[in-house]
């Protein structure tokens, strides 16, 4: 039996890979299909998981009238298409921005700042009495990186030297991140090549 799924996926994969030669109509077509299908998929999933499950079913099925508030606010977003009433769309945006900012303050202080600081402040001497080089590196790295991003004083003299050290730590981080990014892209590419050679063209087992 012909596996149409593999044939379609194989042709589309090859169409995208043609971009390696140069931009061409095949690639543009595959890209356009991807844009359309992705938007359509997102629309369906958002409609089902958010609007139907969280709004329409509880509102019209269980008569949760409090849900009329987000329904009205959501509908106000469409006023953007009517230039005379477009100002109304600022109200739902204000709700989203305000509540998002309100949630962000304690969450950011707790998760991004306090937890990172508490993880950095660790004993610098191990139980055997020897200095813990790793803990020292982390402490120096965090302080020097923060000083690098401190722009209220000119990076000169002692501050400048510490900021310079921060640059080295940042470069190690960027290099490591780059290495991992390359590896993840490579593994995806290997996966696609395996699909083309094994499943689509049957050239390898």
């Amino acid at each position: 039996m012909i596996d149409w799924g593999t044939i379609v996926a194989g042709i589309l994969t090859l169409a995208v890979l043609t971009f390696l030669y140069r931009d061409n109509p095949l690639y543009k077509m595959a890209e356009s299909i991807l844009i359309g299908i992705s938007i359509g998929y997102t629309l369906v999933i958002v409609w089902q998981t958010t609007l139907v499950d969280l709004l329409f079913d509880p509102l019209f099925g269980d008569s949760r009238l409090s849900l009329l508030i987000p329904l009205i606010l959501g509908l106000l977003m469409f006023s953007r298409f009517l230039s005379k009433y477009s100002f109304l769309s600022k109200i739902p945006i204000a709700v989203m921005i305000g509540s998002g900012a309100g949630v962000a303050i304690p969450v950011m202080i707790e998760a991004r700042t306090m937890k990172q600081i508490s993880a950095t402040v660790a004993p610098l001497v191990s139980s055997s009495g020897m200095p813990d080089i790793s803990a020292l590196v982390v402490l120096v790295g965090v302080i020097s990186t923060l000083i690098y991003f401190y722009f209220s004083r000119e990076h000169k003299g002692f501050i400048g030297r510490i900021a310079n050290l921060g640059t080295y730590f940042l470069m190690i981080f960027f290099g490591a991140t780059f290495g991992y990014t390359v590896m993840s892209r490579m593994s995806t590419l290997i996966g696609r090549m395996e699909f083309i050679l094994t499943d689509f063209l049957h050239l390898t087992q």
Partner: protein
Amino acid sequence: MTRKFALMTCFIFGLVMFVQYFSNHPTAKLLNQSILEYWQIIFAFTLIVGIAGFIMNSVRELREGESKIYKLASLGGLILMPLLAMIWGIKADTPFTWIFENVQVPLQATVFSLLAFFVASASFRGFRARSIPAGILLASAIIILISRSSIPGFQFDFLTDFANWLRSNPAMAARRGILIGIGLGSVTTSLRVILGIERTWLGGK
């Protein structure tokens, strides 16, 4: 008037969401849950507004005759997915999931894997050890790449251990510095938004 009302709404929602974080009272928890639910619903509407904007823009370009076939492919994909979902549903073994698995997933994976080539060519051009920071960046990336690849003859235990140490200590230190900066920056921006100092989200002057 609308600007003032939007700023007041933003302030009230921001304050409520900030204050409720410090309370374990069931009413506060219910309020938090409700507002987060409203947030999701309004966000879904904003997504639909965005999709409507995309459709209107594509139709306008179609009328003007700009890259007609690609616009048709995008619009076709966008219409097809909701249509299939309406007729056959979105459960497993439906045309909707068939398109997702055999069109969207392979296209997305291949576009993602294409970046492997561009990252490689960019690194050839950009990775020149002209200065000490550039040299550190290059060395860090090479150590991570070699330690994570399975090239015969290039597998050394000490290199893997060193790469792990590099990732968990100096790279982690820089990451922590960046995260603390992001946390503090987010808190400052959120406060500015709630207090009405930051008004760019309202548009206009």
